[in-house]
């Protein structure tokens, strides 16, 4: 057992750090640092910078443009991105759709879709949940009927993150209703420009527009957009959920956020001193930090087992539950740190304007984050479902 970085790892870390320093556009960094919402263009610009360097599709097989990095290098890379406060990589294309395509797709499909994902020419979104199918994803009803060389798709998808920006959507659709519900589900790629696709915003309690309803009304989809066999959708979905669960913990970002909060306790005035004089608050901060350490080293153990040839399996549920608990606890601590100044509401327009903000500079995003982060224990398979997965698949209950 050796948990420290090797010489080469440290050299790699320095290389990544200096690349980010030289190439992370200052106008995007400024927005990220002062909590101004970043635009689609900002995200694409940054992701293209990584693409160009060959550092975007890092987890892919090398033949399709992956990095060939060791688990430790990937870990270092993610940490450096988070440290520098770069925009989160939008996972839907690169980390979700692409692994399905290179694992289950035909050669034609790989050639057709993967380069555009790797190079950030196409924005993907995920069409899984439906109004009646949340945790019980397999009960989904969106229907795809085969007519000649096309599927005719009808149904409604919901909670579709950033569908308003998307060029393509990967969907779970029902191609057969005769058997048990897990059978008859297929994995279909749909061009968002197809006639019959309509996106409607869902505004969430933090006042933001991040998720959407996607209506599919007699949408014609070429049969060649089916990934895998008809009816293979459920096993593809399970494969993908395991991928999603490992990414969802967001631990590198949490490390930066907790350090930032510690810094804030030294700056935020309290009586004649600073918030750091409040021992009860500092105790809570330290407890979260300890929880974060245990989550981080659990993630590292998982990564190490993957690098030794294992697959992210049911144990990735631990990461999802642990990571999302932490995201929520930390966002709540930020709210507590601010006291009354957590209450003023600033719209996205307010945040983009040059007018002086109310309260400390970092305050504007604090309550919206707390409210928005309620979602993290709900999406990607709710934490209740994750517990069922552990109970069944790990404990054998």
């Amino acid at each position, binding site marked *: 057992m050796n948990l420290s970085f090797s010489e080469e790892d440290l050299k790699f870390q320095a290389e990544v750090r200096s690349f980010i320093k030289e190439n992370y556009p200052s106008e995007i960094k400024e927005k990220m640092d002062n909590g101004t919402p970043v635009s689609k263009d900002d995200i694409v610009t940054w992701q293209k910078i990584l693409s160009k360097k060959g550092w975007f599709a890092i987890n892919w097989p090398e033949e399709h443009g992956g990095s060939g990095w060791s688990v430790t290098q990937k870990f270092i890379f993610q940490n450096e991105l988070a440290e520098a406060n770069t925009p989160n990589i939008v996972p839907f294309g690169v980390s979700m759709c692409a692994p399905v395509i290179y694992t289950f797709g035909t050669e034609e499909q790989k050639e057709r879709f993967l380069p555009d994902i790797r190079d950030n020419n196409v924005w993907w979104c995920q069409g899984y*949940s439906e109004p*009646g*199918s*949340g*945790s*019980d994803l397999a*009960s989904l009803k969106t229907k795809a009927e085969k007519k000649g060389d096309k599927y005719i798709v009808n149904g409604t998808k*919901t*909670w579709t993150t950033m569908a308003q920006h998307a060029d393509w959507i990967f969907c779970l659709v029902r191609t057969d209703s005769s058997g048990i519900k897990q059978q008859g589900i297929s994995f279909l790629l749909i061009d968002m420009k197809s006639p019959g696709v309509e996106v409607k915003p*869902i*505004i*969430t*309690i933090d*006042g933001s527009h991040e*998720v959407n309803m996607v209506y599919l009304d007699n949408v014609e989809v070429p049969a060649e957009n089916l990934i895998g066999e008809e009816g293979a959708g459920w096993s593809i979905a399970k494969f993908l959920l395991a991928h999603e669960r490992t990414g969802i913990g967001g631990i590198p970002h949490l490390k930066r956020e907790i350090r930032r909060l510690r810094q804030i306790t030294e700056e935020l*005035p*309290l*009586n*004649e001193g600073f918030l750091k004089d*409040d021992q*009860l*608050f500092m105790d*809570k901060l330290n407890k979260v930090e300890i929880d974060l350490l245990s989550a981080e080293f659990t993630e590292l153990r998982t990564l190490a087992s993957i690098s030794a040839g294992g697959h992210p399996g049911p144990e990735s549920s631990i990461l999802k539950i642990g990571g999302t608990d932490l995201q*929520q606890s930390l966002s*709540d601590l930020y*709210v*507590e740190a601010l*006291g*009354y*100044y*957590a*209450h*003023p*509401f*600033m719209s996205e327009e307010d945040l983009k304007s040059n007018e002086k903000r*109310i*309260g400390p500079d970092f305050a504007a995003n604090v*309550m*919206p984050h*707390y*409210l*928005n982060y*309620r*979602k993290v*224990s*709900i*999406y990607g398979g*709710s*934490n*209740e479902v994750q*517990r069922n997965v552990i109970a069944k698949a790990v404990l054998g209950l």
Partner: protein
Amino acid sequence: MDFLISDEQKQLQDLIHQFIQKDYPFDVREKLVKTEEGFSKDFWKTFSQFGLLAMPFSEEDGGFNGGPVDIMIILEAFGTGLIVEPYIPNIVLSGNLVSKLGSKDQKDAILPNLLNGDMQLAFAFSEPQSRFDLNDVTTAAEIDGDGYKLNGYKCVVMNGPAADKLIVSARTAGSQLDENGISLFIVDRETKGVSLRDYSNVDGSKASELTLEDVVLTKDALLGKQDKAFSTIEEVVNLATLAISAEAIGIMQKMNELTLEYTKTREQFGQALSQFQALQHRMVDTFMVHEQTKSLLLMAAAKMNDKSEDAVKSISALKYQVGNAAKLIGEEAIQLHGGMGVTEEMSIGHYFKRLTTIRTIFGNADYHLKKYSSL
């Protein structure tokens, strides 16, 4: 021992519940919150007609002599309907300050207008560094000829945008944290040197940042005795803490009800969510926490009513418990609603937002735990 409220109090409670059911459904509230004023002046008048605005004041001041139990009843009922009209800033805080400390002239100028719903007040007591400590006052009032000159900054002043007059705490003597040396002033919003930056809070209420720059006041702007306002400020904020705790408990009750209802209708895996034992246990927990917190509310209201020695300590016990219960019940309600819980469209998220801001207002759980320990 008697936990029952009087017939009159029951009528008051029913009156508010009927008002909510008939005139204040969620969509009406949502429209109000989005207006520039952020609440309805007409409903405020209705509350005046109901006698709610006069409740805590003495008969001499035109009121009904209501006590902490009456305030509790009003605010708990308000909580169930998520009423946004600024009762606590106007009546419980500012009105009470005027009633307890005001000269005859000050009362005459303010109380009749406040009670009939024509005047709006706000109490500016918090500063960026003061957090929840009412004795931490840096806003300065220096003697200026026959009157005073005020300089300083007050933050997140509840009901600031609507307020015709502000009651401002300022230091006339002593150092930053001294209880002695704090005075109160009645300041017209139009006074030279007063600037307000108005905004909405996440819970739909309105507030302001208040800057005072060489604000010249005559001596009759002083409310109560110079240097001696602290104990009354504390007394009034204690009552407001009881009031906002009652509101929170009304919200908790409603959130538990909404969640129970939702889990009975929402089906996943071929059965209602309410049939899953893992979720049943959690709803039992939130039910218990609400009941236990309500017990502390009744205890604190009764102790305040009796002016009991440990009334202040019981208020801290209550607000500590409210802070913890609000977090648990609020977060569980959203979680059990799933994705629907985080949408702007459903009422549950709006109850959650108000419950979340109440965790902070007049001191969060940590603050009151420390205060409880010190008493």
